[in-house]
């Protein structure tokens, strides 16, 4: 019987392992097990990929882009995988894409944030099955507007690397459009993995701005929240975090109520009810022990997207295991249902997905001993993602022309 060998790359060690890497791995193994059992609801109810069992080869993303390039080659050339799926780091995504293109092998990026991948280059063999980071910040600003948040001044604290720098740029640009009078007071850029923010918090508290924006994630975000709460930052300023749902289970009651957070999609506690989500959320929670957050959703939607393409290709070729080129043709411009909503490959000539997103406020629930998300508002993909053919930042700066909001 045919199998489909799928290379999966995600952080198993290093600072990103806890927040993204391991949830993603868990999401992958859970999804693949369920698929191989044929236990996923329609339309993904075929066993494996179109009847082929999925055989995952999981490797660690930690160690920098250089290593990832080498490991990608090894996966394709030595381990003969049919496709590689994964990557959380933007730098890694940027680095591996041209290699897959050159080797003419299928590469499915599942999480990384940078819009540059399809804005600066054209790829045939590379897909990204999730929205890039522009959506996170545009949605945040739109949410703040909708909820009438006062923002005459704001401060920012972001890690000093591409994710932090880009997120901040997007947020500032979007704020410039929707809150034209808002002033950026303090703009902090601690280094990645700093873990201790005493000085930064002094500066932020001292700045007394209406809003404190941050794209921190993982351990850094947890540490920032732990250290800033006792020093009264959440009382002085409205905290706004672009990607924070993954720290909620760990933080529990340490998360200040009323914080505005995004999850880079309609994920986890912000996910909407659907047949697929009713399969994924509780199933994952039961198998893994914690409820699924961003990374688990993202890898799940990625695997489902690949499945969707493979099965479409098999419909066309009469049920044979499709070639890479057949899968690519089927995947380009495709769309599919996922627990996080409908994913559409609309950008990058049909290689870059857009998806809906939810933004909400936190509220600790002492009975369930977990943070609930309230005041959720959803934005459809067309409202917060740029239309095809324009670079994200230009789109924001140009007044987000063509956005279709409900």
């Amino acid at each position: 019987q045919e199998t489909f060998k799928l290379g999966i790359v995600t952080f198993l060690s290093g600072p990103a392992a806890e927040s993204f890497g391991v949830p993603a791995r868990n999401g992958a193994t859970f999804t693949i097990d369920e698929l191989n059992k044929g236990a996923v609801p329609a339309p993904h109810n075929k066993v494996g990929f179109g009847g082929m069992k999925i055989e995952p080869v999981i490797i660690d993303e930690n160690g920098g882009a250089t290593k990832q390039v080498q490991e990608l080659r090894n996966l394709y050339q030595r381990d003969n995988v049919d496709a590689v799926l994964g990557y959380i780091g933007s730098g890694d995504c940027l680095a591996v894409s041209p290699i897959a293109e050159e080797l003419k092998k299928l590469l499915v990026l599942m999480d990384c944030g940078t819009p540059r991948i399809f804005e600066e280059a054209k790829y045939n063999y590379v897909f990204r099955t999730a929205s890039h980071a522009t959506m996170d910040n545009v949605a945040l600003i739109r949410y703040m507007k909708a909820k009438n948040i006062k923002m005459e001044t704001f401060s920012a604290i972001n890690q000093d690397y591409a994710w932090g720098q880009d997120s901040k740029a997007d947020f500032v640009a979007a704020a410039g459009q929707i809150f034209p009078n808002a002033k950026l007071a303090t703009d902090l850029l601690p280094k990645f993995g700093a873990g201790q923010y005493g000085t930064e918090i002094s500066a932020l508290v001292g700045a007394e701005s209406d809003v404190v924006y941050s794209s921190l994630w993982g351990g850094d975000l947890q540490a920032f929240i732990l250290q800033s709460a006792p020093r009264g930052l959440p009382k002085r300023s409205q905290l706004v975090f672009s990607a924070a749902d993954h720290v909620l289970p760990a933080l529990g009651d340490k998360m200040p109520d009323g914080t505005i957070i995004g999850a880079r999609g309609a994920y986890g506690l912000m996910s909407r009810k659907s047949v697929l989500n009713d399969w994924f959320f509780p199933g994952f929670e039961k198998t893994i022990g914690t409820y699924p957050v961003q990374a688990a959703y993202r890898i799940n939607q990625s695997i489902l997207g690949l499945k969707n393409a493979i099965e479409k290709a098999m419909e066309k070729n009469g049920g044979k295991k499709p070639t890479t080129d057949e899968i690519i043709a089927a995947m380009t411009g495709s769309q599919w249902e996922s627990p996080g909503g409908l994913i559409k490959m609309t950008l990058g000539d049909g290689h870059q997905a857009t998806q809906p997103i939810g933004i909400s406020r936190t509220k600790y629930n002492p009975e369930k001993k977990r943070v609930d998300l309230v005041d959720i508002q959803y934005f459809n993909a067309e409202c917060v993602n740029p239309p095809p053919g324009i670079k994200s930042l230009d789109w924001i700066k140009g007044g987000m022309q063509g956005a279709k909001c409900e």
Partner: protein
Amino acid sequence: MNLFFTIVIDGLIEASWLFVVALGLTLVFGVLKILNIAHGGFYALGAYLAATVVTLFAAKGLPPALGFVAMLLAAAFVALAVGVMLERGLLKMFYGRDEVVLLLVTYAVFLLLEDITKLIWGVNPILATQPYELFGNVSLGKLFYVGYDLVLIPVAMASGLGVWFALNRTVTGKIVSAVIHNPEISASMGVKINRIYALAFGFGLMLAAFAGALTAPKISVQPGLSSDVIILSFAIVVIGGLGSVEGAAVGAILVGLARAASVHIFPQGELFVIYLIMAIVLMIRPEGLFQRETARRI
């Protein structure tokens, strides 16, 4: 409260935990001439141990003050024991090798430790924040400070003074300097040099773990803690002059203040500032601020 004052306080808080880590590093280097990369691993180990103890105490409903003391003791003593075992069981085999080879050995140990902590504690973060609330909040001008952070300053000072005193004013310290300078002759004079090595290494790592334990309540304890600490403490030790306690103190304060000043005044520069200081100090004083006196050669 003016900016200057804020910078000084923020800088000193930052300097205090850095100093404790660097102190251990400089101690190990001073005695064993090993630049120990695994030091960061022990910092992480200390944080994990502390977090575990605090969680345990909280689960049992014991008072957080007790948990605080217990976490420090647990981290320190486990690190001491592991450090001594590591020195006796592993490092010893590599003595006499080139300094860089020893560096590679400690790097290997660092890699081992990374995965071992991961195997023991998994990748899920541990939040053990109870002790962080122990000392209340202090309001200074329009800022609040967490009492715990301020307590770090005297704790660091006490550790530094203790080590300095032990090395410079006690007989043991003098024996240590004999071993540092000439192990063979020291052995001939009856010094159990193996014990000195093991203890120095153990104590150095104990300080690393102690610092890790001190920071544990305010951070999220999870993989990846170790690597950043190493390079910071290396920088401090190099700025101060290798093997010097005073140097580590001045180095830590310089780095702490510089970081604080940069955050408040020029946030863009935070990434460089430490390396710039290191480069500048070395340009002016090629062996760090407190150079070690060397024996006459000719």
